[in-house]
């Protein structure tokens, strides 16, 4: 029997930039993003895939990056919180709405929450309150009681002008 592969070289595109790295096979995507790429806006808050603070978008799918190995992302395109702002550094409509509606307090859940929002609105531009709540139910927030998060998303959902 041959030894199982312990590490592997992967190529990913994160927020439009390409990275090639050799990673241990067991490295979780969240750790790869935080520790290898030094993009520390993606957080981790649990060990069971429940909190959603590690949420990113991988090839257009909403993913909890603690539930995926870095090597599984080989060849894929990843979007993290650091890619949300407009190219000139100004806030995107989602970031703006979260701030305006005081949808963040400590801000720890916020990156994951905003990516879940982006995914939701891209797939359902006019969600009802119930659909919004379903859309973010995988993301825990201990600070806001979710009230202002839902309001922030509603403000985007009701706004025809918004391009995410």
């Amino acid at each position, binding site marked *: 029997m041959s030894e199982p592969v312990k590490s592997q070289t992967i190529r990913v595109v994160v927020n439009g930039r390409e990275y090639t790295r050799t990673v241990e096979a067991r490295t979780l995507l969240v750790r790869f993003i935080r520790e290898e790429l030094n993009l520390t*806006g993606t957080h981790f808050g649990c060990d*069971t895939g429940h909190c959603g603070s590690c949420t990113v978008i991988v090839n257009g799918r909403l993913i909890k990056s603690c539930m995926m190995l870095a090597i599984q992302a080989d060849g894929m395109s990843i979007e993290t919180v*650091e890619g949300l702002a407009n190219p000139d550094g100004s806030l995107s409509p989602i970031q703006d709405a979260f701030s305006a509606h005081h949808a963040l307090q400590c*801000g*720890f859940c916020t990156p994951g929450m905003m990516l879940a929002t982006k995914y939701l609105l891209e797939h359902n531009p006019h969600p009802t309150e119930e659909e919004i709540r*379903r859309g973010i139910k995988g993301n*825990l927030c*201990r600070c806001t009681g*979710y009230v202002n998060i839902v309001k922030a998303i509603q403000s985007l959902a009701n706004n025809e002008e918004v391009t995410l």
Partner: protein
Amino acid sequence: MSGTTVTTQQTARTQWSGQSIPRKEDERLVKGQGRFADDIRRHNEAYVYLLRSPYGHARIRRVDVRAAQEAPGVIMTLTGDEVREIQKPFMEIAPPPGGYIEDYCLAVDKVRFMGEPVVAILAETAEQARDAADLVDIEYEPLDAVVTGEDALKDTAPLLHGKVGSNVVWHGLYDWGSVEEAKRQADKIVKIDRLHFHRFTSTPIECNAAVVEYYPGSGEYTFWCNNTMPQFAAMFMGPALGIPTDRLHFVTQDIGGSFGNKITTYVYLTICAILAKKSGRPVHWTEYRTDHILGGSHGNERTFLDIEVPVLNDGTILGLSARAIDDCGAYPRYEPLGSVIWSQVVPGVYRFRNVRIDYTQVVTNKCPVGPNRGYSRLQHMWMLERVIDIVAHELNLDPVEIRKKNYIKPDEMPYETPNGCVYDSGDYPRCLDMALKLINYDYWRQRQAEVRGTGKLIGIGIGSTLDSGTNNFGQARIINPELPFSGNGEVANVKLDLYGEVVVTIGTTPQGQGHETTAAQVVSDILGVSPDRVRVLIGHDNARNVYTGFSGTYASQFAVTGLGAVQGAAQKLKREIQQLAAGMMGSDPEEIELVDGTARVVGRPDTAIPFIGLANVVFANNATMPEGLDVSLNCTYTYRPPFKVPDVERKFGNLTLTYATQIHACVVEVDEATGETKILDYAAVDDSGRLIHPQIVEGQVHGAAGLGIGAALYETLEYDAEGQMLTPNFYAYKAVTALDVPMIKTAAIESPSPFSPNGAKGMGEGGGAPLHAICSALQDVMRQTSRAIVHDSFNPSERVYRLLRQQPSARRGVEVISNRS
């Protein structure tokens, strides 16, 4: 605030304070540029893994770490036997015999709760440290465990700490007025056998984390961490490590929530400190969620027994007596301070004056507790609100009327409670009316009757609470007269920097409360610059920032102590600026006004000096300083609230400075077939005195309501009889989600505090009002059905289902005794 806000009794607005300006914190946080503890990286750092006890109670027979030490990447291990040689037991707050408890950073000889750290492993990577833990060989001898407060007091109970001689940490009798006399005057006495307040935790989304580095050159340890009361930690760690506390350098930056849970992390920081010194490497420790729930910080569990309530037929409550047994888990740590902190709100919002509580705190084989949002007051106020609803239920009185009859009246403010606390201001009946209106009370009372028989039941509930803020630390002496603490305070520095920038430093440790923003608002009003030109350096950094022994963010006090200090420092700086500008422009300091970052002579807008010009004179050009002046433009002010040392014998004195009000009202729908409880409407009316930033205050109200709803219906920390924790992660601990919290309606009134420097009251913890309101609504449901008593603060579907089916013949645990024939 949102559209539902009804703000009245409004005080005069200044240009910035009182406005919901955009938060200064937000931009970096929405861009993912916050800097949280685990984001910190130090060159050459190594990683800590803690191997924890799988038993609730066991003797440690043998620990063999040899194989782990040989494992790839392992730098070193640390065991309890080694710790015993290096560390003195942490200070205990309780006097003897409770104070004989010996608490070390790793288990020594015995483990006393599942999750207690037993061996620490330091390795080159986090994965290697974790792998090596599998190679540690520990022989345990399991012991019987004790997992309830009541059992801990039994003669046959296993002892956790042999030296203490019992499981009691602290016992005290609180007795004010005369309950006996009240019982004689009463028409009836309502007796309730037992009420139980369950164990849960706020468990912030960011777990505990630290990077700790030892610098042999100065003997200094630096902790980049998320501890929220660092000087409290230092007070425990310095003596334990045998070093002066000024060698402990704490640095906090962005903190991902705490709710009190990050106060007692000194135990873990001590492990890291020992490893950092021994290894000569910066050490990095970040908890997993399971670690955090197993061994972090839980809320106090409390059982109330033999409650007796003397009442008049019209529902006037004359007093209350009860036994309280508080379960603090395996080690007291912040406790037994909770054993006095509850007495900040002895009568809650009510007028009765005769109270006797026989209070005992015990250890059990469970995770140690620590301050948890609403700390120690919410348990007591939950009991009071249960008493009100149960009395109403038993005497067939209206739950709204009985509250109004017993509420302290607005014209009685400031109101001295039976134990000498002075409620500063408030209007409880008005807040209640507003809350009822927000939920459309009359409509739901009518619906309630209509839906009966359809398989659904509607309950309407009220929770009336106080958020007592700005502790008088003198209350600790009621626990232990030897403790050299009293008062409270915070310090701030406001300065002009070299180029005239306004810079503020405070010793607080915000975790989402927006201190940068509100501090800037206060400074802006005084110095005449817009908040975006005020730089607020956040976080506790005792090598850079000012601080006091009380510094931190806890116990609903920033608006009073933190902003009080900022206000004082900004005013000092304003006076210096006026003196300097007057000297430079040849006018009087009184004639100088500060507008748009300039100092100018009133009525002569073109005679002005920008701040950069003033700074230049002081910092780079001081030979031009006007004759006779000695200004630094660097001003520090310590705010000290007006407190006295409480009377320890009588357990009497003002224990907190401000008392914010929260009156919540809710409507629930219960499915008779399943017991499932759904919230149909929810309103929270707050009185936090003068509001500095209404949106931030409302956000705190939402957050406290969200966690309270979670605790009432979904979140519980359960142990089995052997002390095995059944809910150690988010699989089993059902943290409340967006689907569980409704759109909370809010409103606020502002009754300015006459005692605080700005009219504001500390707020943020809430008083656990959702627990009270939801239990109250469920009691309202039982009123229509089985007449069962809602006796527990945690009411998942199973419990509601059982209560609905309780037989009329069953022991209800409540009795009404008529005093007169």
